[in-house]
């Protein structure tokens, strides 16, 4: 945070104060001919101990309802809130116009402060937010000592351009914050920030000398900061590589991570997090991590994990503790009942017709579906003239579409025998059942025996 904070604060204060409506603002230009010199009203600017603003009595010399209407004005009881070190006493030899007039302006076209004048002397003419880091303290007090600044004033402090640079949140700001020559925190940081602000992100705040060199001030929390993961964390290999990176001499994980961050996943290996701090007073909570299953934990992992775990339990131990295993390998209150909900038996036609899931993964159609359907009378008994499909008056003529869509449902009640009544060359009426994508030559190569069921020995070539 270099030239920044000082200029930043000065500009922002100027902007804030200038933006405040002043119902009794004094129109200097209208009074130009009455007051040939500034110190007539602002004696304090040139005379030590005198008031900087005029008294109401001075105004009443003219504003007495006889010469001009009376005005109801009194100088403020306290100087304006701010974080400036400036006093007129310290600048006795400077003409008023140097700081209160822009170049070429009339004498009474005054402004509160022309910052470029300050920067011209104190910062070599640099722009406010780009002034050298060390000079911020020339004009500004640290935030923690700007007692009268309100939180809204602090929230409105301008952000230096450096804070928007790509590497600022992850690394650059740290290098800027430490004043190596003076072994303390850079004044530019202290102008706008206090220790509390840094501790919103820094888990290692108590170990960071730059942060500890800052004074504490809860008002600093009005400025918002959030953790930004370094670019390395976005790399696909990061999960696998982070262990090696975090070892001594590696990347400083402790800046953003507390032990709790690691324990989200490393439940079984608490020792490996010992080099990190525990969340507590003066530290940030640290990056919030989320337990994520590795890529091999696919839906069928439940079936396969036993083999892998028996062979390499050390791998499991990276993220699991024994209790995780015992949750299933011993009965527990969380043990689930069956796969289907109790009402599924009544609901299963819809789920089965539309293949919400693959029933045959768990159920053998012959043993499971046909056995029950047979007991319930839901099997074809002879010719396909029975009345089961009574919602479609001529269903037999249009059954092909339903069959190609939901053949698994058809065969839970019908046998090949039923279909061969019509769809067989040798035993039926020779209706061709083959549809889109049928590759006769391939099927014949793979299993000619199947073709003989309908075609007998005379299997035709092609489709």
């Amino acid at each position, binding site marked *: 945070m270099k030239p920044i904070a000082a200029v930043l604060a000065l500009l922002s204060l100027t902007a804030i104060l200038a933006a405040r409506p002043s119902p009794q603002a004094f129109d200097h230009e209208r009074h130009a001919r009455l007051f040939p010199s500034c110190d007539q009203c602002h004696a304090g600017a040139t005379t030590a101990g005198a008031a900087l603003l005029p008294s109401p009595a001075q105004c009443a010399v003219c504003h007495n309802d006889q010469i001009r209407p009376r005005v109801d004005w009194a100088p403020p009881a306290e100087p304006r809130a701010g974080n400036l070190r400036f006093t007129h006493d310290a600048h006795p030899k400077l003409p008023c116009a140097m700081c209160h007039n822009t170049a070429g302006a009339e004498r009474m076209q005054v402004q509160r402060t022309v910052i470029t004048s300050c920067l011209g002397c104190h910062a070599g003419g640099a722009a406010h937010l780009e002034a050298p880091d060390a000079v911020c303290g020339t004009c500004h007090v640290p935030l923690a000592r700007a007692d009268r600044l309100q939180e809204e004033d602090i929230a409105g402090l301008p952000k230096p351009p450096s804070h928007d640079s790509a590497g600022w949140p992850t690394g650059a700001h740290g290098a800027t914050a430490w004043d190596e020559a003076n072994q303390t925190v850079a004044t530019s940081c202290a102008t706008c920030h206090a220790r509390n602000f840094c501790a919103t992100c820094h888990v290692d705040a108590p170990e960071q000398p730059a942060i500890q060199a800052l004074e504490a001030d809860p008002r600093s929390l009005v400025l918002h900061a959030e953790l930004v993961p370094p670019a390395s964390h976005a790399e696909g290999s990061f999960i696998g590589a982070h262990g090696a990176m975090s070892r001594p001499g590696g990347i400083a994980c402790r800046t953003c991570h507390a032990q709790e961050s690691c324990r989200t996943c490393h439940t079984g*290996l608490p020792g490996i997090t010992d080099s990190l701090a525990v969340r507590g007073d003066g530290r940030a909570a640290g990056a919030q991590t989320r337990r994520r299953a590795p890529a091999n934990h696919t839906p069928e992992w439940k079936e396969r994990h036993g083999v892998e775990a028996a062979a*390499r339990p050390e791998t499991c131990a990276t993220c699991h503790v024994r209790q995780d295993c015992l949750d299933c390998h011993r009965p527990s209150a969380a043990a689930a009942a069956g796969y289907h909900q109790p009402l599924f038996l*009544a609901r299963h036609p819809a789920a089965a017709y539309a293949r919400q899931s*693959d029933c045959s993964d*768990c159920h053998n159609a*012959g*043993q499971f579906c046909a056995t029950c359907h047979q007991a*319930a009378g839901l099997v074809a008994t002879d010719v396909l003239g029975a009345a089961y499909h009574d919602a479609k008056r001529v269903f037999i003529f249009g059954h092909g579409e339903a069959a190609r869509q939901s053949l698994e449902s058809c065969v839970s009640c019908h046998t090949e025998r039923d279909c061969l009544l019509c769809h067989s060359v040798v035993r039926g009426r020779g209706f061709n059942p083959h549809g*889109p994508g049928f590759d006769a030559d391939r099927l014949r190569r793979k*299993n000619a025996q199947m073709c003989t069921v309908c075609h007998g020995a005379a299997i035709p070539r092609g489709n």
Partner: protein
Amino acid sequence: MAALGGLLLAMPAQAQQYWIRLESQVQTVAFRGVQPDSVLATDVVIGANGGRFTRGGFAVRCVSGQTYCSFFRPGQRRSGGPLMTTADFSVWGLGVEGLRFKGRSRLGVDLGDSDVWPGTDPAVQLIEGYLEYAKPRVTVQAGRTHVMSRFGYTGFDGAKGTARFLRGAVTTTLYGGWGLAYGVALPVSSPALNPLDEFQPRRRQLVAGGDAAWVLPWMRGRVLYERQVDPQSDAFVSERAGIDMVVRPPHGLTLSGGADYDLTSGWWGSAEATVGWSPVQAPASGRVGARRYRPHFELWTIWGAFNPVPYRALFGSVSVVPWQPIQLRARAETYAFDETETDIALVDVERTGWRVGLGTTFRRNRALGASVDYHIELGPGASSLGFDGRVTWSPIDDLDLTGSVANLKRALEFRFNDADVWQYGAAVEYSATERLRLYGGAFYYDERRDRGDAASFAWNQVRAHAGLRVVLGSPADQGSIHPAILRVPEGGGR
């Protein structure tokens, strides 16, 4: 088994460890289906709506020129009482580190009067039982085992081996043996799989397959292949290849996808691509994707030659926690079948469908939770809509009491039959000890099946269930825990 017996006898008994979990559940459940019947065409009368009916008011279907017309009448009530007991067991300490025997078997009998519960024949089934040798670089299983992949659940009696290279970044699995039928631990030649006296293979198929996977912490890619061959004809029963991949980039994203290709039919089977979003510390997560589903039929049957068409679906789901005790969730999917090339003007069949589900869960603490879900599904063949709600109260840590209510309306596209079911139920689960859990419940079903003829009926029933789960293990303090689990540190908990 003989080798296992030898190992068990050869090793000192005190070195051997075992773990057994027994779960036994009994239910009472009733069915009421339909009974096909016929009537002389000359006895059919014309109803007020112009349709044909029996004199008893049942709608009939007549085929011109045939003597009889056919119809369905409500069937008899049939009661089932399945008692299913499953035993999982594992034995280790066989004198060789990494060696264990793992098994799972099931006993199923129907105590009801109709013997209608599926899966109870044969009564005893060995679901898996294998000897396993597991070391960091290799795992080998021999016996009845299985492979779970995008092809489904492939069971077989044979061997499976997995090798790991580059510190586990690359794994290869090969397997082979005599196959089991899909979805069941029985060979395809079992009479239990052929209730309708269908054509059935006489010999079990030979299964061979494998996969190669590249696994990194942020991604996993796998290619896989499997073939099943009929040893009698030396012809393919099934041959498929597939690929699937999961990538987990930063920022809570998960990208996954996969596809399989049927090498026997020469077409793509099912496929899917999904983007999941589950940002760090965010009170919301979501998932969107597209998928395609096409059933796979083995070449034992002729169904593959009937060219089942796939459907293509777009889906999404979102879960939001607007404030801590409340979770809101929604899911939706729309799908459309590919062209079947069978359109005729006489019959109009739905080709598209959609389903939506909405739900919310309230859980203030461990002791009290409630959830309500609504779903609607409209599509070809059958549709349904309804809701279910439940409240669970745990007055003490080991006791869960649940009350539920649900309603379901179901319409069938190809049949005049609208079912309306209300269900009211209560269930209890109690952990008597760390090794014994008891549970049970009863659900009252109030069901009406509406039609425009005499086949309408209403019937109510109570379905009840009760069960227990027992864990037995070696008597030492942690003796019932698998040694691999003991190598996982206890840790500080989360």
